[in-house]
């Protein structure tokens, strides 16, 4: 059984924002409706995937039931993207204030971080965004919302809170939860994950972040910028192991500039509590050390929520680590039941959950044949600089024997980046050699997340670098880096032979 979700009533400081949020995502005193005779679609889990599917299906006229055991909006709204981006924005402000001189600006000498204030701002933003996910909006859209633990009783039925629901089709979108590493003493000492870190009311003076993936990196940087003495321990030689090396290297450098103590190739092997502080033993090959901190945050992966659903009764095959088994149409081993979002996808992002939910609605309700593999999925790590990617990495192309060439524009070649003093980074566009077809791209830049969308669009629309070179980009913008890469491609088409011919023409 997974650890019980925290009691909805006891998260965070109970201020007006929290009351509004909880009123939207799990109102106390909610009475589950009488179940309909049979539902066209039952959705288990009301995170991003579940909500998107429920709203989309209901809008098209299906009778939909949505079941949630904890909070509507799932991870993204409550303990993921929304709160993290809110505090990241504030952390960036503090970083700029500290760097003010470099922009030719003066700020007061003592910059004090008001942690409670910035967390309150986060709660306000979260409450405001929770309105779109609210139970009222769902019921107004005609969705029957049930709070409780769903439990399958057969291939086409389940129970929730004593009620029996029959369905023509079902979608399991129960998401994933943090995978806490099995380090001796960690649980006893207490550690933070994304599920409780946004409930903090006080900034830890000294913080150890275990895990150098996107979550660990984003929060380590944010907390460092708030003033916490921060150490980040990553077991692999580089951060963000999926990303390409140069991106990881630039991030490492940025962390060092922020004053984060970077420990790569390092594992935490033991935790104990002594004198009110947590002592953690770290090992890096033959180098051993112990650090004393006040809080430990882990970002070491996510495991799918597949327990407690009695999936066996429904004939749905699953794996405790990889999640629910689905085919390319997102159908499980039970033809009536689909899955979407973190519970079954390798790429656990909000936008992927959204896209997969839409595929399920088409395929489950309208005999659609839309494939997961047809999606072009970008992603972004919202550190400073941001690191964004879409499509293939160079190593993936080379593994598939696709000859690949990369057009690289360092951001220090981009006028706007120079004017903004945001030069750390690059745009790399990978093309199939000999063509202008974009295989993938990686962007490291302050606004990489915004910029990657242009390249995703190009790939989905089948636009190559040749066409991109004809697209007028507003000057000066950082996205112009993309046009520069396209222009560089065009110049390589100017072979010596063609150059000679052109010269003959022009001197004629």
């Amino acid at each position, binding site marked *: 059984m997974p650890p019980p979700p925290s009691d909805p009533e006891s998260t965070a400081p109970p201020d007006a924002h929290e009351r509004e949020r909880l009123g939207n995502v799990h109102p106390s005193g909610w009475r589950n409706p009488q179940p309909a005779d049979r539902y066209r679609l039952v959705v288990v889990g009301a995170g991003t995937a579940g909500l998107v599917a429920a709203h989309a299906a209901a809008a098209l006229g299906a009778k939909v039931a949505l079941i949630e055991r904890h909070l509507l909006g799932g991870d993204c709204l409550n303990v993921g993207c929304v709160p993290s981006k809110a505090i990241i924005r504030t952390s960036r402000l503090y970083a700029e204030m500290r760097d003010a001189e470099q922009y030719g600006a003066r700020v007061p000498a003592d910059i004090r971080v008001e942690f409670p204030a910035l967390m309150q701002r986060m709660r306000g933003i979260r409450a405001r965004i929770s309105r779109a996910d609210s139970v009222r909006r769902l019921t107004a859209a005609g969705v029957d919302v049930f709070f409780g633990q769903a439990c399958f009783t057969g291939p086409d039925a389940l129970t929730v809170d004593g009620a029996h629901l029959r369905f023509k089709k079902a979608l399991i979108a129960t998401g994933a939860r943090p995978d806490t590493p099995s380090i001796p003493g960690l649980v006893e000492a207490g550690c933070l994950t994304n599920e409780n870190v946004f409930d903090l009311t006080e900034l830890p003076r000294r913080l150890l972040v275990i895990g150098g993936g996107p979550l660990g990196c984003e929060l380590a940087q944010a907390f460092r910028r708030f003033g916490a003495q921060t150490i980040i321990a990553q077991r692999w030689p580089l951060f963000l192991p999926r990303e390409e090396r140069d991106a990881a290297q630039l991030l490492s450098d940025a962390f060092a500039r922020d004053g984060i103590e970077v420990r790569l190739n390092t594992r935490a092997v033991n935790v104990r509590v002594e004198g009110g502080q947590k002592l953690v033993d770290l090992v890096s*090959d033959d180098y051993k050390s112990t650090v004393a901190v006040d809080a430990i945050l882990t970002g070491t992966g996510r495991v799918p929520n597949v327990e407690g659903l009695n999936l066996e009764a429904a004939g749905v095959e699953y794996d405790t680590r990889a999640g629910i088994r689905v085919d390319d149409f997102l159908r499980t081993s039970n033809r009536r039941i689909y899955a979407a979002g973190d519970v079954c996808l390798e790429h656990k992002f909000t936008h992927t959950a959204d896209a997969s939910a839409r595929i399920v609605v088409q395929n489950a309700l309208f005999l659609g044949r839309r494939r997961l593999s047809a999606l072009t999925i970008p992603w972004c790590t919202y550190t400073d600089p941001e690191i964004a990617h879409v499509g293939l990495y160079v190593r993936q192309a080379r593994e598939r024997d696709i000859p690949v060439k*990369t057009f690289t524009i360092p951001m220090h070649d981009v006028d706007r980046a120079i004017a903004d003093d945001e030069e750390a980074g690059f745009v790399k566009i990978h093309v199939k050699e000999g063509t202008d077809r974009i295989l993938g791209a990686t962007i490291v830049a302050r606004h990489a997340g915004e910029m990657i969308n242009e390249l995703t669009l190009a790939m989905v629309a089948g636009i190559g670098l040749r066409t991109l070179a004809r697209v007028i980009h507003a000057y000066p913008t950082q996205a112009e880096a993309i046009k520069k890469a396209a222009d560089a491609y065009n110049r390589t088409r100017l072979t010596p032979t063609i150059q000679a011919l052109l010269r003959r023409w022009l001197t004629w």
Partner: protein
Amino acid sequence: MSSEPSMDDQTLDQLQRAAFGYFVQAVNPANGLIADTSRENSPASIGVVGFALSAYPVAVERGWMTREDAVERILATLRFFRDSDQSGSPEATGFKGFYYHFLDMHTGARVWRSELSMIDSALLIAGALAAGRYFTAITAGELQLRELVEVLYRRVDWRWAQHGGTTINHGWKPESGFLHYCWDGYSEAIVLYVLALGSPTHPIESDCYQAWTATYQWEHLYGYDVLYAGPLFVHQFSHAWIDFRGIRDRFMREKRCDYFENSRRATEVQREYARRNPHGFAGYDEHCWGLTACDGPSNQLAELANERRRLFGYAARGVPYGPDDGTLGGWAALASLPFAPEIALCAARTMLQRYPEMLSAQRYTSSVNPTLASADGGAWVSAGHFGLDQGVVVMMVENYRTQLIWRLMRDCPYVRTGLRRAGFRGGWL
């Protein structure tokens, strides 16, 4: 390009000879070990010893040392390594035919808890092989020299360094086993792979090399198509021994290029970066460049106006993503002589004119940082000399002038085998 003066042959000769002089000063004649740096209490570096072994033939050719003297020094070195403690214990000299990176100058025992270094062992073996190809006389000494070279090369268990995986690990420690370096991407390890593939006794499989080249990045950067690696030394070290002109592995065939031409382009890229000088450091321009592995001013001044400007010690500085703290390796331009003679000579000449303090005892220091001024108003300069720098200068200047080392290694059957098994074809192969 050049309204700037180039460098005359005499100056080049002086620089090369002064570089070689390091190996005469820094040696322990009893065992042939050479100090990593000229600083006090510096241990020996096996990589530096490798460069020394190849530098002796150059010295003999140029008349800076007698043949007998050179043979004696090499014999002392090779005998030491042959007889060294290969048990792999924390105090030994080596294991499985490899050696610890840093050794005590007198006892030859491991120091600094340094790792068993595969790449530096490869440099040592490459140096030995070059010496073996040069000293071909039928004297007792030279016969024994060649025999010892064979013994040392055959003893290296390259297979073991694969550790059952698809690539060669770069380091090992008795305390913790194989180290978890990131081995991805183009690096100076080509010579390591060639020697490992060419081994008559413990060769690695050729798919090991393919697995490594699969991590290459071919990038169009600053107008050049280049197999990318940040620090300049990566594009130089393997070339000190191997002549890559015209020979192509599968990757280079696909890209219609070769590693020699690539190093030329990489040198141009360094120049383009210096021209842009994104961090606004003093001194950088198209005639003043060279971000590579070198010493740095990290123990200088807390007194920095801008806290963002971090300084590093010995580090592999690179282009275009850094790290770049305004420190240039003055010798790096000379080491690119064979690939890009005009711009390399021009840069070497210009930098010497601007920063004569870059030489001490007429020899290149490891690095210069014009942004940081020293007490007497010149640029900051690294103290003493580093052996690796001297070695690469001696060898690359020689390859530029006479191709001596390249010629020696082109005839080495192990190198030919290694290159062939890596998939190289064409050219002189």
